[in-house]
């Protein structure tokens, strides 16, 4: 009797252990698949030609597989979204965390959740129908589907994560810091910007890194507004292709080396994301310590 119940308990323990390890297995399998399917094309094209080639012509008679335009577009696009989105997000977060009345805080909290819940294709659709024609008229350019349109859409899409995480970080600043600053004669605004903001800096940095991760990984919304021509991103008003959209736009009809090159692009994107994850962890640890 005793033995059989022990056996049963061990069995249950084993089952739960396996369930716990599924997560690790998933990460390993994903990394493995990306590496195994991404390496061959890089070897065939050559690492330097692949990463720093400025021309992508996968369906030409003499195909060229340079992904520098995609890498630069992804970096510029993400940077632009951060430049546009972070000030708005952080200013909103300070207001909501420190100055807003309870009801404003509640309503805006709902708004931010709604913004976070909107599917990316809906962002893409509104971008296509409102932003793209708007940019075309505003700047008098032949086509509004451009890097600029993608930057604006991405900036809006990263707003909720930046606001939410920054509010959490600002809420966690000890009230004593602020009281001390106020007692020394600083105005509330000076206190929030010169005391609370620096105290919450690693949490806010983490929110920015999270935004970078969101922006660099977004595919569908960008695909609908960026124009998708594999140009070098020389100007804000050019039709461009991101790393994500490079994969999505050719996947359905690709074959052979072209298909393998798309897997290599995914591998490059994956490495970017892993780097960003490591950075995020670094800042989150900093916040726990601080």
């Amino acid at each position: 009797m005793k033995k059989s119940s022990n056996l049963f308990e061990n069995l249950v323990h084993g089952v739960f252990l396996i369930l716990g390890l599924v997560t690790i297995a998933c990460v390993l399998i994903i990394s493995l698949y990306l590496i195994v399917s991404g390496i061959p094309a890089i070897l065939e094209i050559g690492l330097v030609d692949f990463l720093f080639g400025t021309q992508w012509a996968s369906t030409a008679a003499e195909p060229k597989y340079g992904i520098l335009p995609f890498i630069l577009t992804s970096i510029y696009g993400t940077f632009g979204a951060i430049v546009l989105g972070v000030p708005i997000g952080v200013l909103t977060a300070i207001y909501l965390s420190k100055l807003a009345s309870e009801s404003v805080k509640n309503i805006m909290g709902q708004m931010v959740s709604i913004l976070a819940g909107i599917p990316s294709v809906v962002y893409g659709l509104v971008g296509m129908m409102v932003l793209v024609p708007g940019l075309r008229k505003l700047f008098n350019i032949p086509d509004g589907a451009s890097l600029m349109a993608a930057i604006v859409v991405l900036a809006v899409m990263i707003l909720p994560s930046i606001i939410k995480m920054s509010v959490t970080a600002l809420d966690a600043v000890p009230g004593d810091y602020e009281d001390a600053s106020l007692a020394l004669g600083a105005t509330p605004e000076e206190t929030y910007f010169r005391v609370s903001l620096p105290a919450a800096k690693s949490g806010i940095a983490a929110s920015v890194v999270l935004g970078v991760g969101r922006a660099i990984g977004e595919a569908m919304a960008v695909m609908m507004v960026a124009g998708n021509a594999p140009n070098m991103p020389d100007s804000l008003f050019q039709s461009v292709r991101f790393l994500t959209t490079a994969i999505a736009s050719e996947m359905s009809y690709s074959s052979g080396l072209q298909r393998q090159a798309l897997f290599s692009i995914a591998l490059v994107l994956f490495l970017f994301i892993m780097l960003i994850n490591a950075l995020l962890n670094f800042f989150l640890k900093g916040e726990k310590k601080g």
Partner: protein
Amino acid sequence: MISNRRKLFLWTVRGLMSLATSLTGLLTLFLVGYVLIRGIPNVSWELLSTSPSYLSDRIGILPDILNTIYIIIATLVIVLPLGVGAAVYLTEYASNKRIVGIIEYAAEALSGIPSIIYGLVGMLIFSNNMGTCLMAGALTLVIMNLPVIMRNTQESLKTVPQAYREGAFGLGAGKWRVIRTVVLPGCVDGVVTGCILSVGRILGESAALLFTAGFAHVANGFIEGLSSAGATLTVALYVYAKEQGEFEVAFAIAAILMILSLLINLSATMVTKKFQRRNQ
């Protein structure tokens, strides 16, 4: 008392903060309003209840609605035991801090991977073996939603008082019996919250499904549906807007998605509030 320079700073900062906050609020209102106003007039019973037909030049989104429901059910049925089980292992069994750390790190890594990469890997692992079908899409979504379910369950498992477990152990219950009768009933709120969040994510997901579940518009039964290719609402929106230029249908779908995502937000808030009150 306050110098002009400080006053200037004060007013600039105040102005900028109000500007940023109102911009965020107005932007949300505009997005919701614009999509609803342009979409709702296009939602008709015919659109909701028929399949697209070239013969009668008609577009219907019934298959897409069914596919969305199928994929949500299939994903949740698979991800729930996995996610809840992993959470139970982490809080009830794991004694090794390092294993806990690695599993949590893996979950974080999973939630940071962009959906287009999930789509690609899902295509390689699932679709290449079982064909492009809803089930392949659902399995891809299982991996994506695993961290969501796991984390929410874990959070609520932590709120189950240690005394409950000790009490049950003291009465002579085995570990599994304690988990089944004391621990699991205590984490229902986390599981429900996780499910709501997952449904929201599945509803909004498109990049991961494009190459795993495909984009056919045929209305099927549940079992048949899972084994054949099909577009969910989001994928259908993308196809109608980007490839076919059917913007009226696209806005109709967008309005439906917007209403659903508002409902999900509402229920998530209500569930959290309800459980908070109970826990106090």
